[in-house]
């Protein structure tokens, strides 16, 4: 039974978020010159008013004294800023996994087949990688030209690849396949290993089995006479390059305890570790440094909402509430401040995007810079660090003669507020971004939506009722929603209204965990019908306009 406590916040506008549009500028010539641009060729370097010349996907000249050959396509980028293309660490960019059976039949839950227990380290990205996947376009629009990507699902989802964020087919994207093993602490549902206890034991066992298997295979290959043939084992074979330290394990470890568990395994089993999608690393600087692990920080950190000063409310708040707010703020600073500390400690790190929204990455990066990460270190974490961590630093990571033409062009210095990405180039292919404002709803539609609505939502645990209040100021919609379960009122976010369609969302807290609830409604004269959905569950919702509410 899910008891839903709706809480929350914010005032949003009828104007949708400003949407960037990805326009692929088809090459009419293989040569492109980006002129009159301020270049940051690598972290800490700067060339004012210079030119970058690109030919057939490679950078052929960088500087103030570059002569543009006739026939080159010229991209005038006066007063803009040009950076090396960003490189995203671990993500699931471009990946679509097949639907898994929710409750697969297993005869003996203690010994399930590996593939349904989430143990598929031999899986490669190839069958799941699609160039048309929206994430490719989204990450590119945020300045990323390359990404690590891997299959998802289970404790050992598969082996990942470094991909370019452009191409005509899935295979085109792949720059370096099988370049890491992706691992998580996710247990298999209702079967072994079902939680952290089993998962840790399974890692130890698989790793040791693989070591023995490899040892015997080697001795068999060198002299098979008289020896029993070792059976091919796809699962164990997948570990061989890890054991030989040819590839690292990217261990998803967002919180402080999983991060320690990954280090524990590294020290016991001895493999190259990249702590992946780390969110809580500030107390582990020493451990991470001592264990010689690499880090990919998550780009999805707790949202830092600037507080609006509300003096009346502050006075009403209890000491306990104020103390809690203070602690929450203190922890926000840790989340965004840790990157600066890691940089100072000399730990090599990049960023990953397992659950980050590409459109919000720039804001998060700016917050890190505000909290002590230097712009140079931030840029390094986006470019040169991942390039050297993953052995592609001779190919990408800087704007230099001979490197792959992966570039980002921004309207202002990238870490400044309001900086907008104007162009992204991936291996010489140029993408242009223009802002486009969503159309405003007309006054008539707004009038239809505003007012007080009584609603009822049917859940399997009985109906929830409440009041939805929508109001308009200067064409901007805001509102609140209450519910019968807790009597609390939440503020609506991301309100979108077009003709008869109204949608908004709000956060709810279920026993301390925040979840997003999305409402999508179709408006009639004074009734609406639609749905509420949250974490895969959908409930029907109906409402009528309350006459008292119409002022």
């Amino acid at each position, binding site marked *: 039974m899910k008891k839903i406590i709706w809480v929350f916040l914010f005032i949003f506008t009828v104007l949708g978020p400003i949407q960037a549009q990805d326009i692929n500028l088809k090459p009419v010539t293989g040569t492109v010159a980006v002129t009159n641009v301020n270049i940051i060729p690598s972290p800490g370097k700067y060339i004012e008013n210079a030119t970058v010349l690109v030919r057939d996907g490679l950078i052929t000249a960088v500087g103030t004294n570059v002569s543009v050959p006739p026939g080159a396509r010229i991209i005038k980028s006066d007063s803009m800023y040009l950076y090396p293309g960003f490189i995203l660490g671990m993500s699931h960019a471009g990946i679509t996994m097949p639907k898994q059976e929710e409750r697969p039949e297993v005869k003996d839950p*203690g010994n399930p087949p590996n593939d349904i227990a989430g143990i598929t380290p031999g899986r490669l990205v190839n069958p799941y990688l699609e160039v048309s996947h929206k994430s490719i376009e989204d990450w590119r629009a945020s300045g990323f030209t390359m990404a690590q990507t891997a299959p998802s699902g289970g404790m050992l989802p598969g082996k990942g690849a470094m991909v370019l964020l452009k191409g005509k087919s899935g295979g085109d994207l792949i720059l370096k396949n099988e370049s890491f093993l992706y691992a998580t602490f996710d247990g298999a549902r209702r079967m072994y*290993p079902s939680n952290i*206890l*089993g998962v*840790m034991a399974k890692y130890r066992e698989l790793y040791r*089995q693989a070591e023995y298997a490899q040892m015997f295979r080697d001795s068999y290959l060198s002299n098979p006479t008289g020896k029993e043939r070792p059976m091919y084992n796809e699962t164990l074979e997948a570990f061989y390059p890890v054991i030989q330290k040819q590839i690292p394990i990217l261990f998803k470890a967002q919180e402080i305890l999983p991060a320690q568990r990954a280090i524990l395994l590294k020290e016991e089993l001895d493999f190259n570790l990249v702590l992946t999608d780390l969110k809580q690393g500030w*107390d582990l600087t020493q451990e991470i440094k001592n264990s010689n692990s690499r880090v990919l920080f998550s780009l999805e950190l707790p949202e830092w909402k600037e507080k609006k000063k509300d003096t009346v409310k502050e006075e009403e708040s209890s000491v306990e509430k104020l103390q*809690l707010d203070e602690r929450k703020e203190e922890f926000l600073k840790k989340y965004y401040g840790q990157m600066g500390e890691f940089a100072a400690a000399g730990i090599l790190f990049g960023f990953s995007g397992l659950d980050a929204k590409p459109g919000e990455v720039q804001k998060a990066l700016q917050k890190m810079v505000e909290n002590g990460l230097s712009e140079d270190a931030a840029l390094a974490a986006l470019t040169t660090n991942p390039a050297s961590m993953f052995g592609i630093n001779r190919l990408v990571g800087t704007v230099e003669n001979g490197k792959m033409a992966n570039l980002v062009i921004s309207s202002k210095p990238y870490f400044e507020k309001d900086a907008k990405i104007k162009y992204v180039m991936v291996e010489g292919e140029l993408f242009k971004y223009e802002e486009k404002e969503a159309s405003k709803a007309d006054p008539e539609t707004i009038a239809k939506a505003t007012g007080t609505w009584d609603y009822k939502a049917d859940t399997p645990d009985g109906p929830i009722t409440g009041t939805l209040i929508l109001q308009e100021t200067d064409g901007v919609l805001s509102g609140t929603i209450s519910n019968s379960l807790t009597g609390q009122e939440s503020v609506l976010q991301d309100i979108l209204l077009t003709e008869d369609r109204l949608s908004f969302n709000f956060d709810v807290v279920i026993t301390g965990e925040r979840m997003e609830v999305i409402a999508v409604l179709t408006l009639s004269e004074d009734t609406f019908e639609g749905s509420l959905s949250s974490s895969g569950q959908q409930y029907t919702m109906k409402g009528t306009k309350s006459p008292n509410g119409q002022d």
Partner: protein
Amino acid sequence: MKKQFSLIIMISLFLVDSFSAQTKKGDVLIKNGTVITVTNGTRENADVLIRNGKISGIGQNLSAPSGVQVIDATGKYIMPGIIDAHSHIALDAVNEATQPVTAQVWTGDALNPLDVGIYRALAGGVTISHAMHGSANAIGGQNETIKHRWGTVKMDDIRMEGAPRTIKFALGENPTRVHGEGSGLLPRTRMGVEQVFRRSFSEAKEYMEAWDEYNNNKNKRGFKGMPPIYDLQKEVIADILRGEIIVHCHSYRADEILMLMEVFKDYGIEKLVFQHANEAFKVAPEIAEFGAMASVFADWWAYKFEVYYSTAYNAAILTQNGVNTSINSDSGELIRHLYHEAAKTQKYGNLTDHQALELITLNPAKQLGIDNRVGSLEVGKDGDVVIFENHPLSIYAIPQMTFVDGVKYFDIKEDRDDIRIYVDPLEEVDVMREMTEHEKCMSNTWEFLNE
């Protein structure tokens, strides 16, 4: 293989050691209290001096070396830190309930030093607890003995360095419900539970022999054999057979307690502690003869069918029959007043103060194999100490300060409102609780239980 495995153990011990070397050690002089040593009587107006985490002096008019904090305990009672031989606090997962045998798993992997339960236990004077695997499986996982060094975020900081390995076993309804009824597997009955043990021990024995043979021959000229398949579960059960792991077995009925001792005799396993053991009083002489121990509740039973028959005299009867007995909590709530639980044996069974206090100090220390380090106030032992207002067996007893390794981790006068170590910056004040806490012993198993 044995060699290699012990090498692994050595390496991991070294790692644990190199981490634990960093845990905090304190210096303190506690003056003028009634010192309950447990092993050496009670001394009025006495002092306890702790240097660098170890007790360095017990006596009168000890003077504090310069820089050592002095605490005046006039009118108060000083006793060894309480030890809980059965707990599930500070764990992210308790049961790996998918197999009847999960010797390969280890609660030491699931430690959660951020669990506020650690602080609550300190507030009840408990300095060490036995963070156990649950009772869903006939052979459950290995446990971890933890020291309540509250305030750290490091898993390694709360491990009790050097504590012997222990493992959870379970008899009766829990394994038969989870695996027999839940998944249609062995064990479905108590006979099946016995069979699970016998089969596991026999297979582990064969496994050991296969590896011994491989290791003895692998360097011989012309050897062509393949190594046996490495099996972590059998590795651990082999270590039980080698006597390297203390078995802590969840049990209720007298008949199955006898059964397990018979099985252990057949396989030559000696280190055995019965947990709960509500009917142990019926077979107390037999338990004493085997040399097994018992860790029981003071007065809790009738929460399921197999435990309808019990008595609050259980601990006293076991004690008087020469069974090393302790009183445990198995609960994040009971752990806060184990001293009160121990006092119940004075109403039910007339145990002396000394006997009653042993139930929560020295006896559980023996059951965990750590009595050379803790469980009493003796020079050279760890500086794990509690200061009580009123005698710890009094109904008015209130712990005032709790020290682990000479470091004060709880002080009733400095008890902050929000003691949590990490705070979620997005958390809202949550006024509703989804469910009340119940028998954590069976957590992570609900999916396997037929309702």
